[in-house]
């Protein structure tokens, strides 16, 4: 396990150096997206008003407060990624997103896109919004405001992490590996509990 301290934008080289199980912290820009953001982008065909090239995107629906023409953070947490799997290959292939941050992981097509285009999935610690919120220095912009709290957010972050490389650009999928390791142990666990036969 290696710990990496990175800065955005991420280059292909930086991404290829990350391996499943590694820990990442980074500084720079982070984009916040959610279901609606991506429905608007992909299903309703709206081009993002800002370049996502080399950037990380986090699955979030933030609590923000509007102060004059600025936005202030109240609480920013992370949501489960699997619902947004279908948008991910396009996010990576078309817009050059280099890291997806969320919890729970994504499926095969996303993994394939990550391998092909040098991108990673970084798992955040679910439930740790207090920490995430503190690591966000500023809400720099909110695009597509009418979609709030599922708009497109641009945050500035400092030492954002720890994030675990859960899907790397070499085809490794940590959640899946852990799950199959458990699956192999299940018969033994059943036996130790006196469970026999099927369900």
């Amino acid at each position, binding site marked *: 396990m290696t710990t990496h301290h990175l800065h955005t934008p991420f280059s292909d080289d930086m991404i290829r150096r990350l391996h499943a199980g590694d820990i990442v912290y980074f500084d720079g820009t982070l984009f916040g997206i959610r279901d609606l953001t991506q429905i608007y982008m992909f299903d309703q065909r709206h081009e993002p008003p800002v370049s996502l090239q080399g950037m990380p995107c986090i699955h979030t*629906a933030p609590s923000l407060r509007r102060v004059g023409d600025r936005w202030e953070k109240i*609480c920013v947490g992370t949501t*489960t990624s699997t619902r947004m799997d279908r948008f991910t290959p396009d996010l990576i292939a078309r817009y050059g997103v280099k890291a997806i941050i969320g919890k729970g992981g994504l499926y095969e097509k996303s993994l394939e896109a990550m391998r092909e285009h040098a991108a990673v999935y970084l*798992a955040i610690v679910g439930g740790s919004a*207090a920490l995430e919120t503190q690591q966000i220095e500023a809400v720099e912009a909110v695009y597509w405001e009418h979609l709030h709290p599922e708009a497109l957010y641009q945050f500035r972050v400092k030492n954002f992490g720890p994030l675990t490389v859960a899907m790397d650009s070499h085809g490794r999928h940590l959640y899946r590996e852990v799950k199959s390791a458990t699956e192999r*142990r299940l018969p033994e666990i059943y036996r130790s*509990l006196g*469970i026999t036969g099927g369900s």
Partner: protein
Amino acid sequence: MAVFDYQLVEDVAKALYIRALCDLPPDVRRALKAAAKRETNPTAQEVFKAIFKTIEIADTHKTLICQDTGLPIYMLKIGSAFPWNGSEIKKRLKIGAERATREFPFRGSSTHPLTRMNPQTSVGEGLPVLYCDFVEDSSRLDILMVPKGSGSENMSRMRMFYPADGVAALKKFVIDTVFETGANPCPPGIIGVGLGGTADLVMKLAKEAIVRPVGQRHPDPEIARMETELEDAINSMGRGPMGLGGDVTTLAVHIETAYTHITQNPVAINTQCWPARRARAKISPDGKVEYGY
């Protein structure tokens, strides 16, 4: 005796919601510390570090631990000598939960089940969830507040097994549920299991199981043994904190039981995430409030 002012119940209901969201109970903190100590996987160690930093930030800045402020549940124990008016208390709990949401302020998660309209109050028809129990030899109103987030609540399960399936059915059901739900309920948390009763009671038992302080065992030694046996089995699965691999997959398994029908064998599972949030207040008829967990 002075007239009891129900405004107090409203204020306490509000304070409890906020306390629960920001201040993790000491038993949960201890359990997480002990878990981190026995964790050998370096990636999992990083997860624990983030957990402790989160708790520390929430303590210092009085902020929300998790952004999902959940649906509010109030569990009441009403003392036999508490001069209460149930409907007034019910009304005040609802207003208190709504005030917590608007005045803190935090995102309300309650939603109409069909239109999905969110009033941003955390309450609505049927909410907050309210449980009442009655206790002897007490003049106090004991309120336990539990905010329940969706990540863990969505992993709830209930099955009506046959009596012939025995306890093996319960054990397999628990193991399979933990296996299937993986990272979703933000492990390592508490696995609450209900055994017995009716379809509705068994789910309530599972909910009572997740609010039992970690470290307390079921008073029946045989059930207590089953709890540790299941804990050990789950922690040998290797799923680890946040499902990323490791030695600690759960902090505790709690089982609550009730008598059931001769032809029934209901089992329910309610999972709780690592921020196993709850807050308690005991109100005396003279208006004294004692806060706890």
